[in-house]
């Protein structure tokens, strides 16, 4: 059961605490505005080794190496970053059975103002389905801890990559200010 206080804890605190509880120590990311509070909080927590990478594929490679070396890691990005990953997921993470956790801030839906982002977003779930990668959309605070926790555990137990899609329903997303 999620803690009673989850309705009050912001989404990024829940994600950070659940990663930490599961010893997911290495955090690589390409910046995203919606992820900013999570990225900032992770940088301020000495438990994590966190740094920015130049491309999402690079982050996937780093987390793969770290996993094989005995350290759990996550790659965080926005939808457009995910769209650069299919080759690396299909030729590295899936066949080599690397439980890299992907956290995607979902752009391109529920109020998107950039047509390109909206189209890129349409490619994400078909790619995950095609590669049989486990994924969950996260829309509610009260489910978030359980989804993050179970997804990390399942990824590690089954030695398979997994993806968490953080919906604007959870994070507020990015909207044009009037």
């Amino acid at each position, binding site marked *: 059961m999620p803690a009673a206080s989850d309705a009050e804890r912001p989404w990024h605190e829940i994600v950070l605490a659940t990663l930490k509880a599961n010893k997911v120590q290495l955090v690589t990311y390409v910046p995203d505005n919606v992820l900013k509070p999570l990225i900032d909080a992770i940088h301020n927590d000495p438990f994590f080794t966190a740094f920015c990478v130049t491309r999402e594929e690079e982050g996937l490679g780093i987390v793969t190496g770290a996993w*094989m070396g*005995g350290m759990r890691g996550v790659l965080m990005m926005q939808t457009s970053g995910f769209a650069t990953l299919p080759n690396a997921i299909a*030729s*590295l993470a899936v066949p080599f059975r690397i439980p890299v956790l992907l956290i995607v801030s979902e752009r391109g839906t529920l109020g998107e103002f950039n047509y390109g982002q909206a189209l890129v977003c349409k490619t994400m779930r078909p790619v995950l389905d095609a590669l049989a990668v486990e994924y969950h959309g996260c829309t509610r605070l009260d489910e978030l801890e359980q989804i993050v926790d179970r997804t990390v555990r399942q990824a590690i137990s089954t030695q398979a990559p997994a993806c968490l899609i953080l919906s604007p329903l959870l994070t507020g997303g990015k909207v044009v200010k009037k």
Partner: protein
Amino acid sequence: MTSGHAKDRQNTKIMNRFDLTKRMVGKLKDEAVIGGIGNSNFDLWSAGRRPQNFYMLGSMGLAVPIALGVAIAQPKRKTIAIEGDGSILMQLGCLSTVAIQKPKNLIILVMDNGMYQITGGQTTATSLGVDIVAVARGLGLAQSNWAADEADFEALFDAAMKSDQPSLIASRIDNKPGVTQTVRDPDLIRETFMRGIGTKEVW
């Protein structure tokens, strides 16, 4: 050798990937080695089986990132990435990440034949004026050098093994393909590697 006389791509000897890989492997004990796509890992495989070797079967350009991840997870173990020129050109940003993270235990070997050898020998930018060592230095990897010849390659590698900074050694090589091909079994490769570097139990 690591400093002193100026070396650039033009005035280095053209060597052979398999020969250099054998020389490197001959110096190893328990170091981890990540072989990049195609010939880089074929010649690593051909140079003798080691459980501490990881052979990439795709993911062009990711040997250095994978090696960086291993180096971060196991700071006491030296980790070596072997990449072709085409592969390193595809993922140049990773060199800046290495420069900024400054792993004390990472060595990058670039096998520069000036071509995409395995896909038919098409010219890469390194044949057309791009100097990988100058690029690497520009991206912040101060300890980047051309190997003038085989003896210099060995001296640079010995120095890199003793260094507490990341190093890059680029070697100009001939157009020979890899000597034999790696077994293409990703499960076996990963499992063997993880056992070889002590992250999975041997039973």
